[in-house]
């Protein structure tokens, strides 16, 4: 290919001279030049006519045009000449070519920019990578050093471990040795002891012989009199029979002890078996019914039938009373199975509970959660309602309390209500007190009346008695007195008075509490006056006697 001649375009910047130099240099050294990355300046402005002058002057227009044409054609642009071979320039094609060149120039500039950008990026990447590389190298160095250190430590510890093992072994050997020494010494001592003991026994035998031989009369027992046996029986001779009896008794004692123990153990056993049975039943009841959850118990399927059968058998036949091996084993095995199932069940429940706290779940859990949520919603609603109710009530109460503050009248009204009530109460109190007073008065008057009545009665009785006496006496002396005239009147009067008296007393008696109280003593009081007024009348008639007696009695007392 042809050389890439540097086609420089005049620069906009001020250092056009340098570019000129640059271009001229480039032109001179054309063959040695290959693709060099240049800073292609931007297209020119109008101030570079001089530059254009360097390439194409007045003299070599033709040459330069033909040169340009050649270059352009080699570049693939259409020729700038007109179709004919003449030297007429095709303006259109020239302009097109220029345009093309300009666009090419633009593209190249862009490409250059991009390349420069990439270059920068790559440069920074390179820096970064170099830094990373340096750091990693450092780290690697560090870790290598650490590893070496740890290895060293490991080696030291291992050696220590080995030392300690060695020490331990030594100690163990020593201990063993010492034990051997001890045992050998022990046997030696035993042997010596036995020898000494034998000597000692010999001495003892000798002594014993001597003692027995002397037949000291001193060795004796002096008893004042024989003492009876504790249980009152006589001493028996030692014979074979007694020996046999002793043996029998001994065995009896042993046997009774064993029997007692066996009874205790049986009782304990029976209790424990009962407890186990109960436990088993309870465990079975605790476990959920297994047939409803086949997926959980699929593995235990074949096992299921056995425990149920066992349960049935064991419960029906009252096997706990027997105590043979197989029954015992069955019982314990069945309990173990049930217990295992219960444990599994509990574990599964625990897992489920833990899963509830975390996330997605089983059907069962979803249901339960939903239930939970529903319930919680319900409860919350209820709470809300209650709160609202409370609030409204509070408001109402507030209103109730607060509203009177605005109106004085309502306050007064309230007060009035209260006042009214208070006054009513007071009225009632007053009435009550009055009534109480009245009652007191009446009671007092009644008591007084009663006292007076009593007194008057007494007086009356006395009067009567005196009068009768008088009458009697007078009857015997002045029989001819015309007292009958006066007496009937007196009698009448007295009888009237008497009647009135009785009436009054009866009145008094009947109605002590009525407020006619103060009225009653009056006729009663007047009566004695009347009796007093009436002369000491004597009456021969028998009927009137008692009354007159009374009257006279009363008179006298009065």
């Amino acid at each position, binding site marked *: 290919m042809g050389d890439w001649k540097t086609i420089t375009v005049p620069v906009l910047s001020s250092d056009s001279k340098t570019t000129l130099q640059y271009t001229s240099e480039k032109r001179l050294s054309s063959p040695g030049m290959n693709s060099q990355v240049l800073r292609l300046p931007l297209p020119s402005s109008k101030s570079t006519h001089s530059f254009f002058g360097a390439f194409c002057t007045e003299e070599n227009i033709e040459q330069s045009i033909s040169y340009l044409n050649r270059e352009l054609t080699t570049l693939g642009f259409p020729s700038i000449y007109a179709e004919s071979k003449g030297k007429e320039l095709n303006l259109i094609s020239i302009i097109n070519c220029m345009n093309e060149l300009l666009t090419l120039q633009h593209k190249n500039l862009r490409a250059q920019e991009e390349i420069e950008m990439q270059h920068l990026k790559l440069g920074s990447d390179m820096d970064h990578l170099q830094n990373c590389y340096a750091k990693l190298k450092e780290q690697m160095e560090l870790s290598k050093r650490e590893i070496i250190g740890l290895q060293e430590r490991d080696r030291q510890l291992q050696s220590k471990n080995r030392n300690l093992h060695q020490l331990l072994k030594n100690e163990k050997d020593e201990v063993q040795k010492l*034990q051997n020494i*001890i045992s050998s010494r*022990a046997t030696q001592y*035993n042997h010596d*002891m*036995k020898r000494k*003991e*034998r000597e000692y*026994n010999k001495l*003892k035998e000798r*002594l*014993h012989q001597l*003692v027995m031989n*002397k037949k*000291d009369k*001193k*060795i*004796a*027992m*002096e*008893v*004042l*009199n*024989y*003492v*009876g*046996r*504790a*249980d009152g029986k006589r*001493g*028996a001779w*030692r014979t074979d029979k*007694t*020996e046999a009896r*002793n*043996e029998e*008794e*001994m*065995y009896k*004692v*042993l046997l009774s*002890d064993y029997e007692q*123990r066996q009874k205790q*153990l049986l009782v304990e056993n029976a209790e424990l078996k009962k407890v186990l049975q109960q436990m088993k039943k309870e465990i079975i009841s605790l476990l959920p019914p297994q047939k409803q959850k086949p997926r959980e118990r699929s593995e235990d399927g074949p096992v299921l039938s056995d425990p149920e059968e066992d349960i049935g058998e064991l419960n029906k036949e009252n096997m706990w009373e027997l105590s043979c091996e197989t029954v015992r084993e069955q019982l314990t095995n069945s309990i173990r199975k049930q217990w295992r199932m219960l444990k599994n069940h509990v574990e599964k429940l625990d897992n489920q509970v833990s899963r509830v706290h975390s996330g997605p779940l089983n059907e069962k859990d979803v249901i339960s959660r939903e239930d939970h949520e529903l319930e919680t919603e319900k409860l919350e609603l209820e709470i809300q309602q209650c709160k609202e109710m409370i609030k409204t009530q509070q408001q109402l109460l507030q209103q109730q309390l607060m509203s009177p503050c605005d109106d004085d009248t309502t306050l007064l009204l309230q007060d009035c209500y209260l006042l009214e009530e208070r006054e009513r109460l007071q009225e009632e109190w007053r009435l009550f007190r009055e009534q109480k007073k009245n009652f007191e008065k009446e009671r007092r008057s009644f008591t007084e009346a009663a006292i007076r009545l009593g007194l008057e009665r007494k007086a009356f009785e006395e009067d009567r008695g005196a009068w009768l006496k008088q009458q009697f006496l007078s009857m015997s002396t002045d029989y001819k007195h015309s007292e009958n005239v006066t007496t009937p009147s007196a009698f009448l009067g007295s009888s009237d008075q008497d009647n009135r008296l009785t009436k009054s007393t009866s009145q008094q008696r009947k109605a002590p509490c009525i407020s006619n109280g103060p009225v009653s003593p009056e006729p009663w009081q007047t009566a004695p006056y009347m009796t007093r007024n009436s002369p000491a009348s004597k009456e021969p008639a028998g009927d009137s006697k008692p009354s007159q007696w009374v009257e006279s009695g009363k008179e006298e007392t009065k």
Partner: protein
Amino acid sequence: ASCVQYRLVVRDASTLQILQLYTCLDQIQYMEWSSDSLFILCAMYKRGVVQVWSLEQPDWHCKIDEGSAGLVASCWSPDGRHILNTTEFHLRITVWSLCTKSVSYIKYPKACQQGIAFTKDGRYMAVAERRDCKDFISIFVCSDWQLLRHFDTETQDLFGIEWAPNGCVLAAWDTCLEYKILLYSLDGRLLSAYRAYEWSLGIKSAAWSPSSQFLAIGSYDEKVRILNHVTWKKIAEFEHPATIASTKTIVYKEVEKSPSVETERLSFPPTRTLASSLFSTQSKYDISQVPVSLHCVKPVADRANPKMGIGMLAFSPDNCFLATRNDNIPNAVWIWDIQKLKLFVVLEQLCAIQSFQWDPRQPRLAVCTGNSKVYLWSPAGCVSVQVPVEGDFQIVSLSWHSSGDSMVLLSKDNFCVCYLEREEV
């Protein structure tokens, strides 16, 4: 009954009135009541004479003279009519009968701490024997002293034997150099052997529970192991550490209360009550907060019979509690709840504990520590009681009355009887 030098004084238990006074030949070393409380034997070891007195007939007398055979120990048989004398050097045991004046001999008795054991019902007697460097146990019928069983034991050096309260099992344990306890049934069969560990010092004390359900073994390693009567295997192991950390145990600590003496009231010469209160300090119990560390005594390492391990063991009569004393921590009584198999209460005293004994009727423990106070503990609480006596009264041992209403407190020269009030229900 009490003996002073060579006199035997018999008093009434409730009034302490002197009922009888007997004079013996020599200083009395040992005295024992017969089981029916009709006779008292007084043994004078130096003279080799045993004198028996009767309470019913003060004139009745009996003297048993061992002569040159010497006398080392003497005791009654459970029927109250035979006296077993152990001659010197444990040559033989002579059984003297008071009813028939007959004599029986038991040869080769073993010279150990508990060589003779009677069953609770008094029917059988087990005697430990040793012939030709081998240990044997003979079981005799007490009614006619016939030999019932005679068997050897697999022990190195039998140290003690004890019957279970039900009379059917006999526990025999080995010397402290070997931890081994053997359980024999009444007819001589070996029921079980228990061995907790080798080489270390072994069993120091053992006690049966009143129901014969448990056998508590106290050993030198400060632990109590409880065996049960069904399998004769260990069901519990109680440790006695010096620090109590569990919050469920109650620790009662004895604390001295300094008496407040008003200086104005001091008179000269000081009155009796004042003097006694000045010199004897009151003490009361305080509940200490857990964790509590107890005062520990390090035993001397190169002496025999070191003061370590469980030296005292006692079950309460209702089978609910076990009281123990760890000789390493001599000031504390440990009370274990047997129903729960846990430590229940620890009583920490100011002085070393001399002895303790359970009330035979209720779960009440009386403790004495060598000062003039007696300490009582029951599940309701504990109390420290000052013995109201002038001067010093150092209680060395105590003994309950069988009815649980009173107890005897013994010091070196004196004794006093403490009466406990019974609560009106």
